[in-house]
């Protein structure tokens, strides 16, 4: 029997955890989250596979760890509608619209039409004061605004992933994760012929 050796990328969950912690102390670290957006897409476009999800994604690993090792998951089947195409693509669309909305807010702050809003918004509605994580004038306000917006998205998706990790299987988030859906769609298009 071939025994499975841990590879370097099996520890990337530490990065995901570190990311959330760093954003708590300094919001500008939120920019690093762009890696989790760009790398999966580039892999799917260039290589035509989901190498990121299948091997490197720290977030998937983190949920697996919490659900399996820490036994936080109820290990139940996910309701069928959550894995249906309309829900997965619907959630992706919603996510992209909210992403666009966040970019627009960033643009407004960049062009000084609006002042910097030092809040992290959970679930696109609950505003949490987060002003300790940004000490003023080191960067232009637009750069900080993007960081607040991006961190909000990352924290919201982590929270949603945690809830479905507990309710269903550890990696339930992967069923409706916008990056997972998007990279699978890219692969489908790429391998159409």
């Amino acid at each position, binding site marked *: 029997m071939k025994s*499975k050796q841990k590879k370097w990328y099996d520890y990337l969950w530490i990065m995901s955890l570190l990311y959330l912690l760093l954003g708590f102390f300094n919001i500008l670290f939120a920019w690093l989250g762009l890696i989790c957006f760009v790398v999966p897409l580039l892999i799917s476009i260039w290589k035509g596979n*989901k190498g990121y999800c299948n091997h490197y994604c720290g977030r*998937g690993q983190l949920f697996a760890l919490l659900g399996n090792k820490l036994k936080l998951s109820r290990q139940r089947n*996910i309701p069928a509608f959550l894995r249906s195409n309309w829900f*997965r693509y619907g959630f992706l669309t919603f996510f992209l619209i909210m992403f666009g909305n966040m970019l627009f807010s960033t643009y407004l702050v960049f062009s000084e039409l609006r002042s910097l809003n030092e809040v992290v918004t959970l679930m696109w509605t609950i505003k949490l004061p987060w002003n300790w994580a940004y000490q003023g004038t080191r960067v232009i306000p637009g750069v900080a605004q993007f960081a607040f917006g991006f961190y909000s998205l990352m924290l919201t998706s982590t929270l949603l992933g945690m809830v479905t990790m507990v309710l269903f299987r550890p*990696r339930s988030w992967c069923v409706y994760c916008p990056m997972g859906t998007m990279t*699978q769609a890219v*692969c489908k298009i790429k*391998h159409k012929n």
Partner: protein
Amino acid sequence: MSIQKRKRYASIDKKECVACGSCIKICPLAAITVPKGIHAEVNRNQCIGCGKCLKSCPASVIEIVDEVMHKEDISYEKQTKKVV
């Protein structure tokens, strides 16, 4: 004379698979791959039907089937049965 061959393996509902790769990580025999990023595929020669992948699949699209082959004279009759 009837010769019986049994094989137990994981079977994936390819239409519903989200290609996340949780099954790849858990399979002790490296019997699963997601070659084109669209759905997982099981190498039946390697799979022993242990069911670990089934328990880890967040989309619940894996089942374990038992394949029984009867050899009646010269023809094989294949029966598959879902066991989990």
